[in-house]
């Protein structure tokens, strides 16, 4: 049986997908702006963040209306709560893109980096995790979401190495402190981005299978 509610739920899911494209674009631009020292991209990210915030409010509003009117149960309920939680995660991800862009702007006034400290690799791994988390949500694919959870450690490892290498570099050459601190903050924002991608993946697993996997608890 076809239900009007399911059409509205699908439409809301599509809207969340549109929001995720914007977030993905903002994150990509942030990384590119930092690596390519591109000021124009930085300004674009600030504009996109406002649109992302607008999406968050609209999705929240429509989601709450659907909760009240549709009174969903079971998979429908889990899907709708997943949409609302992922909505909040996406908005936070937009903030992280802005944070990276702000650091990139500061770094524009500093000399170019002596080395990349594997930040491009870390950024690629992080963006890959984010895309995989969103794909698993759109395809209701719990297996793919579980892969996201397994891959999060890779980004953590990059961040740990980044921290150690930059600390050593700053100890050797104190003139690198300003650059080093900004690079660490970029690393931190990428690491938080990967964490939020795993949160999305955890929500997908609960949505699809009703299983709680957060905080390494499996029900």
């Amino acid at each position: 049986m076809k239900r009007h509610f399911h059409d509205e739920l699908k439409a809301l899911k599509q809207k969340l997908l549109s929001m995720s494209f914007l977030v993905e674009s903002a994150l990509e631009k942030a990384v590119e702006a930092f690596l390519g020292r591109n000021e124009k991209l930085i300004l674009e990210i600030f504009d996109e963040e406002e649109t992302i915030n607008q999406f968050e409010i609209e999705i929240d509003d429509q989601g709450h209306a659907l909760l009240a009117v549709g009174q969903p149960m079971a998979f429908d309920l889990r899907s709708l709560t997943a949409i609302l939680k992922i909505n909040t995660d996406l908005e936070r991800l937009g903030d992280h893109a802005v944070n990276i862009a702000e650091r990139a702007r500061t770094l524009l006034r500093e000399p170019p980096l002596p080395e990349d400290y594997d930040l491009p690799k870390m950024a690629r791994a992080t963006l890959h995790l984010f895309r995989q988390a969103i794909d698993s949500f759109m395809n209701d694919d719990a297996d793919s979401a579980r892969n996201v959870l397994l891959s999060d450690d890779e980004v953590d490892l990059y961040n740990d190495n980044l921290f150690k290498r930059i600390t050593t570099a700053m100890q050797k050459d104190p003139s690198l402190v300003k650059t080093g601190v900004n690079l660490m903050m970029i690393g931190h924002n990428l690491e938080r981005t990967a964490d939020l991608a795993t949160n999305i993946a955890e929500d997908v697993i609960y949505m699809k299978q009703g299983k709680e996997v957060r905080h390494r608890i499996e029900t």
Partner: protein
Amino acid sequence: MRTMSVLDMFEFKTDEETGTLPRKEARPKTPLSQIETHEGQPIKIMTRNLSVFYGINQALINVTMDIPQKAVTALIGPSGCGKSTFLRSLNRMNDSILGARTDGKVLIDGINIYAPGINVVALRRLAGMVFQKSNPFPKSIFDNVAYGPRLHGIQNASVLEELVEEALKKAALWEEVKDRLGRSALELSGGQQQRVCIARALAVNPEIVLMDEPASALDPISTAKIEELIHELKKNYTIVIVTHNMQQAARVSDFTGYFYLGSLVEFGTTKKIFTTPDKKETEDYITGRFG
């Protein structure tokens, strides 16, 4: 009126299997309701392979369910799934249907209510019923509620007054009708009439209240009153409710059973059934993808 014991159901003191009086030492030392548990709740009613036939049609197929004590259990499922038949089998209301036959067991506090020698009138006092359409007698409010106690031999006017007041208070109707107990129950609104019927069921001190769509004919305010009442009543009674309204089942019940084509598909806590049911059939039904 004193609280009823399950043994009062026996016309002849019989054992569930043999039809003989269970010797005192043979009876469970601890009532079954204190031994069996479901999600930490003691069990009041157990059904084992319960089947009901109407002539050659089987309306209920081998239903085994544990209904917790002092909790609300909702029975849901599409029309014709057997949920009302199941409800009616819990106080042998199906007995009155010509050609109806029951197999399997229904145990209340461990005693099979289909055993020979069971006093069905006493059973129905223990397990009262409230129907979809309120059905007050064409009598005064007082006489409606006093009907059951009088039937059970209570004639003393002050005792009856006390019982009626207590039952109407339990049914959350006392304040609305205390000044017009002599007026016909038929003058009341639909929601009030339904609460008269609930008071009538409570007046004989049951332990179990069976409700068949008790709010389906009521407006939202009356429905909310009945739902709040159910929430209050479960402190003292075991309640089983059949409802087509899934939001209502979710609101009022602690446990839910989903029936389909005469079988119990899934039974569990209401939270589990309405958030993460185990069976796809349950999921499809409660999300409206069924049919």
